[in-house]
């Protein structure tokens, strides 16, 4: 049993938005207009200390979205991913309030909370529907995990800044990188 995580190495991210494009393309069938599951944020843009980081659902072990959802539509997979059932979602928006990473998004933004079904990164693992079914493709997008592959964003990252995989494996890769960099200040960030 793996515990799947994302890790973004800010020393390597060059703000190319390749991960964003890869995600959009891979999950196109499920994405309504305006939904962007992954984004790159650059802090200190244009000044010293500029750094970019690719952000999407972090698949928290103790997920705040899951804690606040009135419908209990979130579930953890055996790979430690936080996924949700769009058939149960009522679009109340509580997960958006609770998520520290701004991952949950809604296709609409109307009065009376008419937001439509929440959408977020699935770690390219689909949803509760049958693997690779039409329903899964329409609601959740790709299911690469069922094919034994990692999420498209990390796979296509040109600088290998964005890592996806078992927490232990990717943190070991990252630790090794930090050791090579040599500077005692060159920890994450």
């Amino acid at each position, binding site marked *: 049993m793996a515990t799947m995580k994302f890790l973004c190495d800010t020393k390597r991210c060059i703000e190319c938005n390749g991960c964003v494009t890869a995600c959009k393309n891979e999950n196109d069938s499920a994405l309504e207009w*305006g939904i962007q599951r992954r984004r790159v944020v650059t802090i200190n843009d244009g000044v010293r200390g500029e750094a970019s980081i690719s952000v999407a659902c972090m698949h928290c072990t103790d997920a705040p979205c899951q804690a606040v959802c009135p419908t209990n539509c979130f579930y953890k997979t055996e790979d430690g991913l936080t996924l949700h059932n769009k058939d*149960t979602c009522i679009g109340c928006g509580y997960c958006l309030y609770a998520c520290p990473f701004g991952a949950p998004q809604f296709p609409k933004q109307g009065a009376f909370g008419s937001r439509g079904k929440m959408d977020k990164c699935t770690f390219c693992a689909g949803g509760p529907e049958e693997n690779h079914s039409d329903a899964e493709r329409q609601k959740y997008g790709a299911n690469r995990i069922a094919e034994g592959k990692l999420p498209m964003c990390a796979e296509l990252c040109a600088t290998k800044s964005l890592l996806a995989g078992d927490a232990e494996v990717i943190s070991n890769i990252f630790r090794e990188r930090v050791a090579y960099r040599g500077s005692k200040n060159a920890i994450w*960030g």
Partner: protein
Amino acid sequence: MNNWFKQISLVLALVVGTMFSALSFAQDAAVANPQATEGQIWAQLQAGATGETTSHGQFHNQPINTYDLRVLELRSDWLAPALMAALFGMIIIFVLFIKVNGISKLHGGFSGKLVYRWSKFDVSIHWLGAIPCLLLILTGLTLLAGRFFFQPYLGEGFWAALIYGAKQVHDVMAIPFMIGWALMTVLWAKNQLPKMYDLKWMLVVGGYINFGPFKGKHPDAGFANAGEKLWFWAFAIFGLVISASGMLLLFPNLFEPSRTLSLIALILHSVSAIIITAFSIVHIFMATVMSEGGMECMVSGYCDENWATQHHNLWFDEIKADGTLKYKK
């Protein structure tokens, strides 16, 4: 996030600051340090720094929003069980109380003479608030506590339909409830001001206890007794909190609340709901079962003369003295 909204969230932060002192506001914590060097990036992100992004998604320029994660446990571990207790617990307590204590009968029976007490308009605004209030309690309970107390016993499809229906009814019923709340609060406040004799009423629990030193007591009461006044002011205050927090949640596109403010609104909404629910149960029991002849007031607007003299003696004396006493023809 526009500046206007920042102002409002700051004001609200001050108001609820004492209750939620531990909650930090992400926007305020965001310290942009242009001289950041290695190792400081994480500290900045953790403090809620915002940056540039090509995404137009809501709040997407902030990688990490920081807030007090205890609000999550507050909902599941305290507020959800408390709302269940406020509804079902109060019903059980009241049923047991009536079994032991008995109800408050009219001593002289019904006189048959009906005294004018509420106008038709008063009766209608009462039900304008009351019917949505009952529906809001039931649907709100489903939304807050349903997943812990109901979902385990329901099928997946039925649960999905139930919670969807609960949300729709909750959203729509909020509007008539707020109108009813506003009208009742404004129009009825003058009869609900506390008086000295209300203290004595409280000391003998309104004379509703049928044993011990309280038995047979009939404390003075004006148009409203002390218990009704307490309910009125609780409803006025927590009705305001529940309406304001509800508006934030209902019209996010209008008020553009921050995520942290929305979470605080959720908590305040639940706390107010618990208090209003508990009071509502008492109010319903008092009117329908406990006080014989009480329900008539909110059906026809008239009350029996014996009921008036027994429960609202000062009011009855007053209208008799100043000639406003009107009988039903």
